[in-house]
């Protein structure tokens, strides 16, 4: 016969075991997530590192099937496409972000615009490519690298706008009020006070935006397309690193695969380093830009800063 105490004890032990089991499972899921990161990175290193050599950056592509050659055309093209996209994306994004934060804080209409922009952050990137194809590539009649830049800029704009907005919201209202008290105009306050206060945060957003578009392939497939030769004219089709990797992976030659691995390693390292820099500058910004929830985590930074 078991006493009541025994039964109760056993129930407690059972509950403890269940708890242990589930907590172990949750630890395993975290290990699973991190495992994938290391797995992908180690794959890239194992397969790509030994094929990185200076010729990759200095030589153009050989005719298909002829071993050797490099990817200078893709690196140059990628740099041009992303730079132009960044200039367009940052300008528009920061402008819109300032408007959302400084002029639209009390207007329901502008807050609605901001929320729509927040939704546009997650628009499928391939749709942007299709849009630019319809508006630009089709009328022109051939693939055009400027179209790739525009597609990337369209992807970047909402990201930058939302981060700028979030960062400007962090600037304490007191600073604005102090400037108002001196009789400053709103544009003066924005340029001389709030933008200065939030510049590090905005820079972080810009870095994250660049990191995001650097790895994009889909919108480039039918805008800037691809080119086997070095091309610097932005009105012609231009090679990019990501599309070239796509072409090489799908291609039949082994040395193409090797170059694709090397190029992917360089690309991934670039993107990861950008992301980590952004992360270090502001701890609390997430790469995932999960809607306004960022503002929640930033709430703590704000509190922390006030205490300082």
């Amino acid at each position, binding site marked *: 016969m078991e006493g009541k105490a025994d039964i109760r004890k056993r129930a407690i032990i059972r509950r403890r075991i269940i708890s242990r089991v589930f907590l172990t499972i*949750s630890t*395993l899921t975290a290990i699973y997530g991190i495992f994938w990161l290391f797995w992908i990175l180690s*794959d890239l290193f194992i397969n790509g590192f030994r094929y990185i050599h200076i010729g990759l950056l200095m030589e153009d592509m050989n005719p298909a099937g002829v071993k050797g050659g490099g990817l200078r055309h893709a690196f140059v093209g990628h740099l041009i496409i992303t730079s132009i996209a960044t200039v367009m994306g940052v300008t528009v994004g920061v402008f819109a972000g300032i408007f959302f934060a400084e002029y639209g804080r009390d207007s329901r209409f502008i807050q609605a615009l901001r929320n*729509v922009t927040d939704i546009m952050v997650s628009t499928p990137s391939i749709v942007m490519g299709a849009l630019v194809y319809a508006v630009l590539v089709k009328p022109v009649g051939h693939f055009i690298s400027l179209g790739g830049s525009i597609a990337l800029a369209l992807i970047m704009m909402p990201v930058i706008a939302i981060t700028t907005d979030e960062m400007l919201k962090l600037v304490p209202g007191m600073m604005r009020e102090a400037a108002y008290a001196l009789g400053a105009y709103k544009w003066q306050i924005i340029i001389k006070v709030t933008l200065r206060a939030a510049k590090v945060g905005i820079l972080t957003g810009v870095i994250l935006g660049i990191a995001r578009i650097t790895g994009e392939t889909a919108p480039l497939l039918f805008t800037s397309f691809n080119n086997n030769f070095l091309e610097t004219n932005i009105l012609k089709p231009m090679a990019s690193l990501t599309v070239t990797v796509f072409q090489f992976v799908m291609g039949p030659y082994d040395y193409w695969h090797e170059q694709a691995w090397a190029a992917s390693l360089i690309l991934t390292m670039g993107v990861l380093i950008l992301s980590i820099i952004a992360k270090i500058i502001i701890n609390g910004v997430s790469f*995932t830009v999960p809607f306004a929830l960022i503002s929640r985590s930033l709430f703590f930074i704000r509190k922390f800063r006030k205490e300082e």
Partner: protein
Amino acid sequence: MERDGAIIEVEVSLPISQRAKEVKKNGRLVELIFKTSLGFWAIFLGVVFPISAFFILAKESWLSIKRFGFGFITGTVWDPVALVFGGLPAIYGTLLITFLAVLIATPVSIGISIFITELVPKWLKPIVTGAVELLAAIPSIIYGMCGFFVFVPFVAKHVEPFLIENFSRLPVIGFVFNGIPSGIDAFTTSIVLSVMIIPFMASVTKDSFNMVPSIVKESAYGLGATKWEVMRKVVIPYTASGIAGGLILAIGRALGETMAVTFLAGNNPQIPKSLFEPLTTITVALANQFTEADTDLYLSSLYYLAIILFVISFLVLVTAKLMVLRLEKQWKVKQI
């Protein structure tokens, strides 16, 4: 005016009041220009861009919409030669791999969030959080490439033969595991896709877990609840709408994912009968066939797929956004 001990004479050409008026007028003018130029881009991003995107897609797909109507959505034949286009295989493929990926990603993301908020030692916390978030930073084409060269051969050699051997004869659900272990199929695609969306879901879930007031958790501990019971019966119900928001955000991400899926799905315009058959999705069809489309109707049908994708993902994300907004309101009330 006195500065550094020296006296600087300030010349005022106009009477002070007139000058002030001028400054005021100029300031107002600059203000107006500044505001309109910023507002222009804000309105562009918030209204003009989404609406014109919709209309451009609609205009481009008009030919196909006129020809096939809503029957396009249920049409199963995709034959560019005979000029018969039906979107069901691609739509079905998109929904299938999204569903499977979310099915895998949800428990994993919740597990990771529990680990980060409750279990991990403080010094390890930023490393784990950062590592999971870095998964979101890796370009999609890299997932596709690693999946294609490394994961697919592994799965085809070790995992799928095992699954087919042991599960394909099961009653009722056995057909799911039928097929040839090629590795290029819904199974591999959805696993890789789930890894890509885990960081998005985990970061929303984690943020909502952090929002649970500690007093609520402590009350449960005070009643003698174990850690798991606190998570299961207090934290998860309390943050249900946050988890749902993250889930829907992840769905939105998965729907639009292109490159990784293009490498892994196989571009086969048929409705897959099991997990181990190649399939196609809307994004795969676009990526593979867009530049090959030689007739207007072909291209227009691809745009039809694109607009379906655009509308689905927009609606999904609106839902996610509304849930997150509701959650924020709730929190704001509670913080006071």
